[in-house]
């Protein structure tokens, strides 16, 4: 009997020791912890920023806590804020632009503002800041630029007698015609998308300067949205748009598997395009088509850095962010290395004019793609954002599936709007 109790006692002690070591973040005065995801993209950017800031503050140390993805970061914030114990959060965390509004509104105590940080906000794209600003108060330091690009295979367009200029600034109807021709003559589709969480309608609406929300309510009866859905459905039926069932099918099978002559998404998709070395020199980047013609600009899926409510060294965190990502003296060094090591493109206008940005890339036929993307980023229209961004995507994606299966456009959009309104409780 005694043995059993002794064992129980030991077990309890082991458990409590384990629990203690779990929450121990160092409280060194010059050390900050940051939570982020993507070892090939965001992490190199953070490392570049730490190295830049160490030049003025040699004792500075940045501990990066890597998470598998943005969802895990969101769950960590949900857990900490719901339990009321913020001590599990790091000093700074990377957060998705489309998700942050909801999290700041739901958990106001989980964040610290960037008020008082030495950042010239005019040096950033207005659209990017619209995500991280609440009632005029800045919360986030922008990291990457989610500017959407439309990449085309020039060799395939050429086979049908087109150049990149011929597909720039066209209407979606003209795009559909070209798509049909390309499909017929070469067998390639002109676009693909992960249909589970479909990004297309959002980007196409933004290129029109419109949102799926008006005054906080879903606006799916909008004529432009209807037209956009019709374009996607038509493209899917023609075979010029492939709607993949999931993310890996989208990237591995349609893009890397060489089924498409065009890719439209946030510029973070470029590393995926670049995986097929055989197609080097055959790609070119341009802007999005629009409903009535003219070049379209949109953004999709960037992220920013936020100081959490758990940060005890708020001044240090503000200074670090202002000096590096915030366009301070270390910004050029930070963003140049972030671009070189991770392909992270800035939304900071002054940092985007460095020599590194002006370089041409052989993969894209010598095009200075980064300078072009920064220039496009300045044109992205600011549109209304909403806490229910992802739910809107899901329901519109479902509507597209139902329309392809024979549903009627207006009825399906109406149904999608009703479902979303129900979820939003309005």
């Amino acid at each position, binding site marked *: *009997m005694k043995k059993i109790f002794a064992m129980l006692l030991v077990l309890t002690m082991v458990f409590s020791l384990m629990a203690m070591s779990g929450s121990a973040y160092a409280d060194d005065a010059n050390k900050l912890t940051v939570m982020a995801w993507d070892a090939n993209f965001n992490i190199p950017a953070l490392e570049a920023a730490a190295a830049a800031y160490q030049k003025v503050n040699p004792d500075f140390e940045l501990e990066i806590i890597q998470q598998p993805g943005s969802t895990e970061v*969101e*769950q960590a914030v*949900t857990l900490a*804020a*719901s339990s*009321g114990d913020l001590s599990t959060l790091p000093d700074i965390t990377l957060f998705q632009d489309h*998700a942050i509004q*909801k*999290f700041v*509104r*739901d*958990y106001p*105590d*989980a964040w610290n503002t960037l008020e008082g940080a030495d950042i010239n906000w005019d040096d950033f794209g207005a659209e990017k800041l619209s995500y991280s600003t609440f009632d005029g108060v800045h919360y986030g330091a922008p990291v990457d630029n989610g500017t959407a690009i439309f990449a085309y295979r020039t060799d395939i367009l050429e086979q049908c007698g087109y150049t990149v200029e011929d597909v720039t600034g066209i209407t979606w109807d003209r795009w559909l015609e070209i798509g049909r021709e390309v499909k017929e003559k070469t067998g390639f589709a002109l676009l693909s998308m992960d*249909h*589970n969480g479909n990004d297309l309608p959002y980007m196409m609406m933004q290129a029109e300067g419109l949102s799926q929300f008006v005054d906080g309510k879903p606006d799916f009866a909008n004529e432009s949205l209807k037209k956009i859905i019709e374009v996607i459905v038509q493209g899917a039926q023609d075979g010029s748009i492939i*709607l*993949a*069932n*999931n993310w890996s*099918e989208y990237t591995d*099978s349609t893009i890397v*598997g060489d089924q498409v002559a065009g890719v439209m998404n946030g510029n973070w998709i470029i590393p995926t395009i670049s995986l097929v070395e055989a197609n080097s020199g055959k790609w070119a980047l341009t802007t999005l088509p629009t409903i009535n013609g003219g070049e379209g600009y949109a953004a999709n899926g960037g992220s920013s850095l936020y100081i959490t409510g758990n940060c005890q060294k708020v001044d240090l965190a503000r200074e670090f962010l202002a000096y590096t990502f915030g366009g301070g003296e270390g910004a050029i060094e930070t963003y140049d290395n972030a671009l070189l090591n991770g392909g992270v493109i800035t939304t900071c206008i002054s940092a985007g004019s460095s020599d590194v940005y002006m370089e041409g890339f052989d993969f894209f036929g010598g095009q200075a793609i980064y300078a072009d993307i920064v220039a496009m980023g300045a044109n992205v229209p600011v549109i209304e954002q909403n*806490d229910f961004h*992802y*739910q809107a995507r*899901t329901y519109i*994606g*479902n*509507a597209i*599936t*139902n329309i392809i*299966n024979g549903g009627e456009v207006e009825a399906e959009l109406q149904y999608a709007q*009703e*479902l979303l309104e*129900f*979820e939003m409780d309005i």
Partner: protein
Amino acid sequence: MEKKTNRWGWAFLILASAMIMLFSFYPMFSALMTSFKTGSSANMKYADPIWKNFLRMFKDRMFMTTLKNTFLYLIIQVPIMLVLAMLLAQLLNNQHLKFRGLFRTCIFLPCAISLVSYSLIFRSLFATQGLINSVLMGLGFIEENINWLGTTSTARGVIIFALVWRWTGYNMVFYLAGLQNLDYQVYEAAQIDGANGWHTFWHITVPQLRPVIIMTSIMSINGTLQLFDESVNLTAGGPASTTMTMSHYIYNTAFGTGTANFGYASAMSFLVLVMVAILAFINLKVGDRRD
């Protein structure tokens, strides 16, 4: 002496009860309280009216869709699986069969695979450019790749197929164990009387296995109503949420895409609990032939 043993008995009992209270009953009670609340999880308030979340469920068309999906899986998959498991158990119970151990292991093996990994393997098998399409195309059965996971009927079919593959062996083991307890002479007697395999199965095996059948059906119903991994990993609920299960929707409401509606998610979980309880009760009543 007896007193001392009693004291130790109580000591152990209290320890175990305290643990169950702390880790099982208290969270259940806490979830029940949560199901009456609304608002962001950092600042939850009691709903007005208090049963708001429960009323909301019956107006929620998404929840109704997932409810229908789940019951569709239940009605089609559970009978197929249990009958198949029984047939396999009957075949493998034959004492003259060679390599019985090998066959049993092979059929049970899918159960040793993690739910997530097998779902992901099925997803890549049935991808539009996946192995199944390549094989069918190579054999000349189809002319164009089938979008298995992008079409409602085939996506549901794939999930049911996956479930049958994963769980038949598991149920078979229970039936085999049940059959081991039956006297094998009964079968030999039936054989002498001229009963064929089908007759022996329906008139000897099934009636004698009744308690095992009740247990496996309760377990299968319970498991299917809580179906989660396949819906999340194999189809991600798609196309257009037509393969999403209740548990998947509950998870989405609580943790998915930033809704964090814990109150409503808890309320839906309690409905699942009630449904499992009712179905298990019916099953017991129907199956119990004792007076």
